[in-house]
């Protein structure tokens, strides 16, 4: 079941982007600004001034950011990211909610220290235990059959459940039943031994000591799910931002505004401003997603983020930045070689292949909790590292120097790609007509 999730998500994301490109989801909505005076007033200027960026690069980036954030693609994309994040957090929490609140019926006397110990058993299993006073064994049995209580303690001597509980049963009810049986038995025995209530309480509160190991253990499902959610968000966002960069460059070329722009600003600075502006819009969206995820996880007491250490969040965000920085140049250069938006289709698929490869390999590792050799290799290649490295981090399979090495390789790769992209962009952005042949770009 879990292995098809990445495939479904990847197909959905690609279909969404393809539909947007072909315009089947409709053109960007046309909204008339009623108050023209408002527009002309310098009300718009603060956005431009907010960014302390040097000169024209800052201007280009600020325009890009403003247009993106206002556009429909941003709103729809943000909504989708939030849906993915919310779904990943809320749905497991809803499915798993049965185990979180158990009801234990108590018929006959049960001393206060033992009652407290039973409630503490619930906390030990990550849920709560409510004690329900039952007038007698008959009433407790009736409540058990009706499902109003999960188990009953009769006179502090017997535990009754509705269905049999075998030793191998790992359901939440079974685990709680075994724990309560042990707690109550021990508690009553301690009282029978003549201990004071205070002494009994101390012993009843005793719990097994925490065990740690020198070798890292296999991560649990929680951590796997968490790293997969991060991966999903990374994949979706990178795919989306790459498409923005591609279509943004084509928009400028096809409308020929690029001629007006390049008359006033050198190509490298125009390109840098564009990449920066789209990047800022992207991280605004990513920040929103993280904020919503944390808030929601708190609200529904989800355990999806329990495994989410600050380290994992930092790793995911770092690789979102590094991944975007690497791919933005590639997509911008590719966009400059075509004239019309329709031609973007033919570029999106081949350019998306490394992204999809990285995502698939990394998500397999995240869901199985087993970092394969392939993932460990891909974690050092700039095109796939944005997916592979965060997974290694969340699986505890990468040390800090491996992370730093991979990041350094990625930064170096980005610098090289940016240079090549700048050359391709300069050579092809002003040329129209048939698609510029790649060989010709390199020989110029």
């Amino acid at each position, binding site marked *: 079941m879990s292995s098809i999730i990445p495939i479904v998500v990847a197909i959905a994301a690609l279909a969404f982007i393809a539909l947007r490109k072909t315009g089947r989801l409709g053109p960007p909505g*046309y909204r008339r600004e009623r*108050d023209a005076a408002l*527009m*002309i007033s*310098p009300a718009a200027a603060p956005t431009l001034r907010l960014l302390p960026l040097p000169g024209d690069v800052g*201007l280009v980036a600020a325009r890009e950011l403003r247009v993106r954030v206002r556009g429909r693609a941003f709103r729809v994309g943000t909504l989708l990211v939030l849906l993915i994040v919310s779904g990943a957090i809320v749905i497991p929490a809803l499915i798993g909610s049965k185990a979180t609140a158990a009801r234990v019926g108590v018929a006959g006397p049960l001393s206060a220290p033992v009652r407290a110990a039973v409630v503490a058993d619930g906390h030990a299993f990550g849920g709560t235990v409510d004690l329900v006073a039952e007038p007698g064994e008959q009433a407790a049995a009736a409540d058990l059959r009706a499902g109003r209580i999960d188990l009953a303690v009769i006179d502090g001597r017997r535990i009754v459940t509705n269905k049999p509980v075998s030793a191998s049963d790992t359901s939440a009810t079974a685990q709680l039943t075994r724990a309560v049986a042990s707690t109550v038995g021990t508690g009553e025995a301690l009282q029978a031994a003549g201990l004071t209530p205070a002494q009994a309480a101390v012993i009843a509160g005793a719990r097994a000591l925490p065990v740690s190991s020198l070798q890292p253990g296999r991560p649990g499902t929680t951590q796997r799910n968490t790293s997969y959610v991060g991966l999903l968000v990374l994949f979706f966002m990178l795919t989306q931002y790459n498409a923005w960069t591609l279509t943004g460059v084509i928009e400028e070329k096809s*409308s020929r505004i690029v001629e007006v722009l390049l008359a006033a600003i050198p190509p490298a600075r125009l390109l840098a401003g564009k990449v920066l502006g789209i990047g800022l819009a992207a991280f605004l969206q990513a920040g929103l997603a993280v904020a919503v995820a944390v808030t929601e996880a708190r609200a529904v007491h989800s355990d999806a983020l329990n495994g989410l250490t600050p380290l994992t969040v930092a790793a995911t965000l770092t690789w979102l930045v590094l991944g975007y920085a690497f791919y933005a140049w590639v997509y911008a250069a590719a966009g400059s070689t075509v004239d019309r938006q329709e031609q973007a289709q033919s570029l999106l698929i081949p350019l998306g292949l490394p992204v999809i490869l990285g995502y698939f390999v990394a998500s397999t590792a995240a869901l199985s909790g087993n970092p394969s050799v392939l993932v460990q290799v891909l974690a050092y290649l700039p095109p796939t590292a944005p997916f592979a490295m965060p997974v290694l981090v969340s699986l505890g399979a990468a040390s800090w120097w491996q992370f730093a090495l991979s990041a350094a390789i990625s930064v170096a790769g980005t610098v090289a790609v940016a240079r090549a992209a700048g050359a391709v962009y300069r050579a092809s952005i002003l040329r129209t007509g048939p698609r510029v042949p790649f060989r010709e770009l390199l020989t110029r």
Partner: protein
Amino acid sequence: MSRLELDGLTRRYGPVTALDHLSFSVSSGQVTGFLGPNGAGKTTAMRAVFGLTALDSGTVRWNGRPVTLAERRRFGYLPEDRGLYPGMLVGEQLEYLGRLHGLSPAAAAAAAAGWLDRLGVAGRAGDKVESLSLGNQQRVQLASALVHNPDLLILDEPLSGLDPAGIDTVGETLAAHAHAGKCVLFSSHQLDLVEDLCESVVIIDQGQVVTSGTVDDLTTRGRPRLVVRVAGDRDGAWARSLAGVTVSENDGGALRLVLDPPADPQSVLRAAFTAGPVEEFAVRRRRLSEVFREAVAHGGSGRRQATRSETGAAR
């Protein structure tokens, strides 16, 4: 008094020469027309001023020195394809271009509003460009080239596709800008309009200047031209027998004559009297279209064909 100089611009696309040591200059204070047949190199030359054409050789100078980026920011350019962001709001777009050309936020906002108002599209500042009519889009495009009050304004075919009212607007705007002491150069194929709008013209063909000067000079220079109408004479047979007289046109008896030595206006008038009652007799200027055809006719047509197709492919 500022001055744009193109000095020896050369640009080759493979075997084809789009610009062939092209040299001319544009002075401030007057509107200069930039003429030439399709494929003559007009667009390539104009793009070269903005650094959009990689030159094989030659220099573009502004006030005697090679153009710097800072100076180029004070230039305005309206490309043939009229670039604007289709989905961006009109007012924001003008402000953005103004700021890219070095205006402060407040100055850009004021200039955008001012130009929209002056060109009669003030109410559309909050609309997307793509929602405007073609005529209004062209007004916004003109505003986009003017928003930073450029020292040099270069427009590629600004009149094409305009209705008469639009042509008047553009003409008045260009004249006002030039007369405010700026340089204005624009290309066009509508020679009669150019004759009305421009004080001087540069005519190029095959990447070279073939003629340039003030419109006054070019139209009065050269052989004398007369229009003569003799009552009852529809064919103008009397004029065809005169030495040095060529009938260039016969508009229902109104003959358009081009004189070469030994003919002169007096001898033609005497000949007309003997042919019958003279109803019309005038010394005429050449039309700019005649100047243009004459200047461009000298080039070899075979080479021009090649140039045209190649620049189309290479652009």
